[in-house]
């Protein structure tokens, strides 16, 4: 007979907790396993990889990296710079203009305010693939194919980032501050740039990370816009590599390219994960 019911309950709780931890560890391993194999294989040379899998890293990390960076068919360094340029551009443009749009709707009272808000919410769900055909043809008539402009400028109109900014403004931006700035003689545009934006910093940081990452990972639209080799971004090189004859390829370089595409994002994420995880739910919906 058990000594008392409290102890039995405690024992049961301990057991449940143990089961939870085991499941959580298994799921985490499942998430991390492929990345582990990736990093191990990026440190091994092609003949080593062909021999079979090993759980221990090899010594060819720098050798693979060097080979990849000097590969004439894959302009990796150029692609990284292109990707960095486009993604940074998107991060700046999308956060600045989304905040500006949110500010217009949050701080001013004008006749079409509600209509403008309803319109932006309505277009939120239109997938970008749906307009891709018209978009690519229009960029053709503008002579913007194979330039970065069609990949950066359109991000000024991103309804989801706008919605996030608006939610955040409602929480942290009292209109008294704006009034005070007006009394001090600040011009409206200056008020936005020097008073509102600094208050919005946390929201801007979170959204800048998200838009940077999604632009860095974007494949569909860039593959339709960027044509020449020197303008390719990292995902396009991944596609090119997949298209190439794999049997002739140095697997060490393949793993190294995937590492270059994935690992920088992982490192930044691990450094900022606390803010990112908080940011995911902030802008979604109020349950």
């Amino acid at each position, binding site marked *: 007979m058990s000594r008392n019911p409290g102890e039995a309950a405690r024992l049961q*709780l301990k057991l*449940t*907790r143990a089961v939870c931890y085991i499941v*959580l560890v298994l*799921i985490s391993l499942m*998430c991390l396993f*492929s990345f582990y194999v*990736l990093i191990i*294989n990026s440190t091994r040379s092609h003949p080593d990889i062909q021999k*079979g899998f090993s759980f221990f890293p090899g010594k060819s990390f720098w050798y693979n990296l060097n080979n990849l960076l000097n590969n004439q068919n894959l302009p990796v360094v150029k692609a990284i710079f292109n990707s960095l340029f486009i993604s940074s551009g998107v991060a700046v443009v999308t956060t600045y*203009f989304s905040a*500006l*749009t949110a*500010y*217009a709707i949050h701080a*001013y*009272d*004008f006749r*079409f*305010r509600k209509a403008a808000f309803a319109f932006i919410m309505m*277009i939120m769900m*239109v997938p970008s*693939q*749906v307009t*891709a*055909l*018209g*978009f690519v*043809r*229009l960029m053709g008539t503008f002579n913007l194919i194979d330039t970065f402009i*069609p990949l950066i*400028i*359109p991000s000024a*109109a991103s309804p989801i980032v706008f919605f996030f900014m608006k939610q955040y403004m409602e929480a942290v931006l009292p209109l008294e501050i704006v009034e005070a700035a*007006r009394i001090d003689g600040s011009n409206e*545009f200056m008020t*936005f740039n020097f008073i509102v934006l600094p208050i919005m910093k946390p929201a801007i940081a979170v959204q800048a990370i998200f838009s940077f*990452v999604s632009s860095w*990972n974007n*494949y*569909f639209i860039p593959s*339709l816009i960027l044509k020449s080799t020197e303008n390719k971004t*990292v*995902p396009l090189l*991944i*596609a090119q590599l*997949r298209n190439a004859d794999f049997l002739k390829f140095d697997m060490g370089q393949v793993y190294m390219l*995937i590492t270059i595409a*994935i690992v920088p*994002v*992982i490192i930044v*994420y691990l450094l900022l*994960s606390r803010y990112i*995880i908080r940011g*995911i*739910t902030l802008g*979604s*919906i*109020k*349950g």
Partner: protein
Amino acid sequence: MDTVHNQTAAARKKSGSVKYSKWGYIFLIPFFLVYFIFSLIPLVSVFYNSFFENYMSGLTQIGPNFVGFDNYRKIFEADLGKYFYNTMLIWIVGFIPQILISLLLASWFTNLRLRLRATGVFKTIIYLPNLIMASAFALLFYVLFSDAGPINDILLHLGILDEPYRFQSEVAGTRGLIIAMNFLLWFGNTTILLMAGIMGIDTSLIEAAEIDGAKPAQLFWLITMPLLKPIFIYVLITSMIGGLQLFDVPQILTNGTGSPDRTSTTLVMLLNNHLYSKNYGLGGALSVILLLISAALSLLVYDTLTREQRLLRKEQKLMRRDQKLRKEKQKLKRGGAVQ
């Protein structure tokens, strides 16, 4: 004194809102201008293109000739059904385990009695794949699960397999890989959304039920789940729209072929093929179909999310009318009594 002050403040506010309202319009210009040029014009042109025959046959350009709804007919007669089936099958088989595991994890992370430690670390790990470049992830799975790749190597060494399983030559293997990748990419995101939903629930409801002697399972199914419905539906529909757009993973994994025998070709892969071969008529028709499906799904989510509010408003309206009627009745009665 006080009222005078308030009046001037009100007057200032009023004149202020008139004076400043133009800035509202000015600050909206960039968004609407960019949207108009880069999204709205393309959208209209997609509709326009869908009614024209316009493609390259070898080196000769056919069209553009107006053909009415012929492109739609052609696209339905071609393999649209098959690709729709592929897309939805891949989505649904991935979504069911995803939502179950996400619910389980979310309920563990928010369970006050369990008080799990290091949940931050676990949350960080399960969300990690969501930020990974889907195309790079697909290439990674392509090499890991190739016939002589590490996974087959490990399975052979462990004695689970006698000969390599050719993942990417089997229908189930290829679809399974796409489903597994989608699951890994998205279940962390779903978990965190559901967690936010659970944490938004008023804890006093749960405490009250506990005092009434509800068991944990009852608490979950009878209190948490019904209150979680709005966010649950949001997750469901956004995931479905995302599933409809599935492209990067199967495109890179199968190099655009949808092998074996186009059993892993999705709707957007088909669209991509039409865009590459510059068949603007069929591409346009397919885009319009995709738009209509997404719009229908969005309306559905909007409808379910606002249903409760609408019901509440209706109820209030009815109640008010009821009260009015009662008052009038009383008036009539009183009038009658006086007479």
